[in-house]
């Protein structure tokens, strides 16, 4: 920290406090003696199962749809790419509940495409809502990864006679794997934490559409101790994901 002027150091310290104190408070106030009972409860296991399954489905779909879109944004010469990129990033800045309202307007019973996959109030609806908010993470990370690629490898492969799909499969994809992995992990974590869009679009039914974040919200009213335990559970999952990423995703952004 040598050389940093003191106002910078003070502001940085305040930033650490702003981020750290709520988390410390959470850990300090959690009723640890009660934690095992809450974690083992059927309601918790149901919500955990719904959350993990939905987030994984949403992350996989994000990859399947996001990687091609990222490729188009990074490599193709399609006109209107700027507008397309703005569209891809929109869910990042949209309030989640607005995403839920939009999904209802599109796929609800009085929506533009009523009955499509019968999404509202279903597990598929949870996945759809999470996909909407998580997809941008894959697009952003993978597009950045593709732009950083030295195109000479792909050019060499093409020069040696490989078709575009073979080039993509054997050269492009392996080289962008770190970015793809980081995008998938971020999408998964974002999907896991989604609340506003899923509650609005899919509702909260234990065992089917009630996710861990929804459980926390509901538990606040009747069992605040359980809400704290579930919050720590989510915190633990988030920390695990971040540690697994180990700052690698920061590289893909540059």
């Amino acid at each position, binding site marked *: 920290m040598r050389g940093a002027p003191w106002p910078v150091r003070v502001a940085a310290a305040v930033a650490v406090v702003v981020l750290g104190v709520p988390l410390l408070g959470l850990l300090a106030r959690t009723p640890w003696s009660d934690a095992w009972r809450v974690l083992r409860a059927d309601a918790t296991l149901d919500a955990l199962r719904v959350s993990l399954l939905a987030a994984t489905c949403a992350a996989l779909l994000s990859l399947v749809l996001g990687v091609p879109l990222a490729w188009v944004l990074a490599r193709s010469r399609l006109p209107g790419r700027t507008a397309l990129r703005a569209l891809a990033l929109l869910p990042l800045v949209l309030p989640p509940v607005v995403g839920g309202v939009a999904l209802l307007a599109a796929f609800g019973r009085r929506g533009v495409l009523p009955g499509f996959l019968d999404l509202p109030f279903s597990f598929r609806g949870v996945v759809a809502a999470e996909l909407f908010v998580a997809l941008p993470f894959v697009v952003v990370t993978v597009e950045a990864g593709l732009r950083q690629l030295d195109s000479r490898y792909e050019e060499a492969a093409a020069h040696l006679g490989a078709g575009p799909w073979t080039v993509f499969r054997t050269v492009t994809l392996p080289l962008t794997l770190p970015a793809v992995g980081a995008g998938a992990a971020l999408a998964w974590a974002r999907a896991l934490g989604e609340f506003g869009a899923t509650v609005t679009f899919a509702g*909260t039914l234990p065992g089917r559409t009630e996710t861990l974040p929804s459980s926390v919200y509901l538990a606040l*009213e*009747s069992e605040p101790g359980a809400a704290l335990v579930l919050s720590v559970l989510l915190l633990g999952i988030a920390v695990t994901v971040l540690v697994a990423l180990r700052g690698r995703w920061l590289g893909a952004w540059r």
Partner: protein
Amino acid sequence: MHRALLLLLLLLVSCGDSNGDGRVTVFAASSLTAAFRSMGADADFSFGSSSRLAQQVAEGAPADVLATADEESMQRSGLRGAVAFATNRLVIAHHGAVQSVADLARVRVVLAAPSVPAGRYAAQALSAASVTVQPLSLEPDVKAVAAKVRSGEADAGIVYATDAEDMETIDLGVEARYYVAAVTEDGRSFVDLLRRDRGRRVLRQHGFGIPS
């Protein structure tokens, strides 16, 4: 550069709340929204699910008055001296697909979660009628239930009569009792207002009953 910093500082200072302007803060069940706003009281309102608000009061939220939709929530707040001040009816809100309580077993139904008063009253009504329902969702707030029925996402939902005035309803024969308690001395004036003739008139106008 210094002017920019000064401007930033001034903007940051205005980020805080302005507290203590002498107005009474009322925490109330969301079904009381229209009625309380028409009371003509100089108060700040926070409407939401009774259980959540009671929990917040128990944790020291700066409310002067707490009004809940059932006794259990009021007990959770730990407040003393609560009185019943209004009643409401539980109804099935629907769009014509429902003729009786039994029909709820075969249409798309949304209920409030059992952790909120409306959810508890709904369970009471359903068990009294011996009807088992597979709800599509157990919403955290009764207004959310009404919204889902109103928008057509659900065929029916169990809500308070006062939330369903724009929809077709079937009375369930269950009465909700609302309780109010003053959290601070400042809140007493609002509690008294609710129990005087003027307050009762406003409550009746909004579809509430007065407990005997």
